């Protein structure tokens, strides 16, 4: 691949966030997890989609935070929201019926069939090698949103053949599994990473590389994936971030960085 500018003025994380933000085009409401998904959703609201309804599981509907929230329960989410409801209500009345277009999730591990683990890594469940925070709202977001977008950095310890614990169901064991389980949302339709974009194959449900970000070789994505990654025959190259996207994203994260270390951010 030849590039006119071999040294882009953006980072792979910025590319990932921009790609995730663009994926929200045409959606009405987005159930947002904290961290990378929240950054991307707020970028979308500040660039191409000012009317995007952000829903946080703390019960804030239509939040318009001026800065990136550090946790899903920040005061500015309540103060800027169209409505603030209780936690039972946000899950029962808003998420469960399938009212929300898109759920935006992160992952500690994700597998071939887009199942997500945020619970334990390694060893036995009762005696894990690493104890992670757990499920939070993710299992029901993954089940009930009409579709799910996963934003996660690519790496062989993250993209594994089989997750150590199924916290949130993607396509389970493969075709037909969601239907057999009675899950009503479509499941993960996009997995956006710092290297490219994966989508489930329509027949096999297996995550397949459909886009690489500019300057990323397919072999690099394969090496960062813990299974034999399928590549779409005509994969695309993501459009590089525009100046506007980068400017707005950097304004967002600059205001945040005074208060938090973005790389460590995660939330309930």
């Amino acid at each position: 691949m030849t590039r006119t500018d071999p040294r882009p003025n953006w980072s792979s994380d910025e590319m990932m966030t921009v790609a995730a933000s663009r994926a929200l085009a045409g959606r009405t409401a987005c159930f947002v997890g904290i961290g990378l998904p929240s950054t991307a959703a707020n970028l979308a609201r500040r660039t191409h989609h000012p009317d995007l309804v952000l829903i946080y599981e703390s019960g804030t509907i239509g939040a318009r935070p001026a800065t990136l929230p550090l946790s899903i329960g920040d005061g500015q989410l309540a103060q800027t929201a169209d409505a603030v409801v209780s936690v039972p209500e946000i899950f029962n009345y808003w998420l469960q019926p399938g009212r929300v277009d898109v759920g935006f999730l992160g992952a500690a591990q994700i597998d071939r069939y887009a199942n997500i683990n945020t619970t334990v890594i390694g060893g036995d469940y009762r005696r894990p090698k690493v104890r992670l925070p757990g499920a939070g709202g993710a299992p029901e977001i993954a089940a009930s949103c009409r579709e799910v977008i996963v934003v996660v950095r690519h790496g062989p310890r993250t993209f594994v053949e089989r997750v150590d614990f199924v916290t949130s169901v993607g396509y389970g064991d493969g075709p037909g599994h969601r239907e057999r389980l009675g899950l009503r949302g479509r499941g993960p339709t996009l997995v956006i990473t710092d290297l490219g974009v994966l989508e489930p194959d329509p027949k096999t449900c297996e995550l397949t590389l459909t886009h690489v970000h500019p300057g990323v070789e397919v072999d690099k994505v394969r090496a960062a994936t813990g299974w034999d990654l399928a590549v779409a025959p005509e994969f695309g190259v993501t459009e590089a971030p525009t100046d506007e996207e980068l400017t707005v994203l950097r304004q967002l994260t600059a205001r945040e960085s005074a208060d938090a270390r973005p790389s460590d951010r995660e939330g309930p």
Partner: protein
Amino acid sequence: MPVAELSSLSEAVAELIRDGNTVALEGFTHLIPVAAGHEIIRQGRRDLTLVRMTPDIVYDQLIGAGCASLLVFSWGGNPGVGSLHRFRDAVENDWPVPLRIEEHSHAGMANRYAAGASGLPFAVLRGYTGTDLVRQTATVGQVTCPFTGEVLTALPALNPDVTVIHAQRADRKGNVQLWGITGVQKEAVLAARASIVTVEEVVDRLDPRPDAIVLPWWVVTAVAVVPRGAHPSYALGYYDRDNAYYREWDTISRDRATFEAWLRTAVLEPVREAG
């Protein structure tokens, strides 16, 4: 005039919370009853079943101090920072005492409190299906809808012995008002056998506020005035979240000795003046 008892925090905890109790200190990022958690540590409660949707650093502190033998939860972390090191040390290494866990999702926990508040034996929801929580958590069942035949997830109601929350204010009769993100606090109080509410202040009259919840005096067992009782979380209209404290906790809690030194100087030795 019957009133919710206006008492000191230490009296309320001493009177209502016993070793072996099931205790929920609820708060969803906002209004977390941290001072009450510290009082439970000071009084040396043991073998508690601690319940919380989002156990964060005050639960890390209670666990590290050896107060808990079982944690019922759905997301355990230091929001915006990372892991809870005392929680992990207890789960991974049994330090200072073994900690069993009963793990759910947020939707499940919220519905379990709502069922408890409603006087129902179980909650019903669409959730957990296909996840490994079904295999690992004994308190996940199924129920068949008698009208449609659809199989749904059933979870037992949560009815804590004591629920503890923090609120912005109460009046002199003990009516409690909280606003902003109110999480699952109303359900957690109504599900419990007894409740302790710490408040920023007591006022003569609770003027109405948009989106505020009022818990009437006759469903609240004890009210204690504890200004900044939610620090380092925040109380909307009173003070902001102390994000630096959450970051510092990551360092303090990583190491057992550092944690124990912190516990002595920050919790055990100071006697809270707010009598």
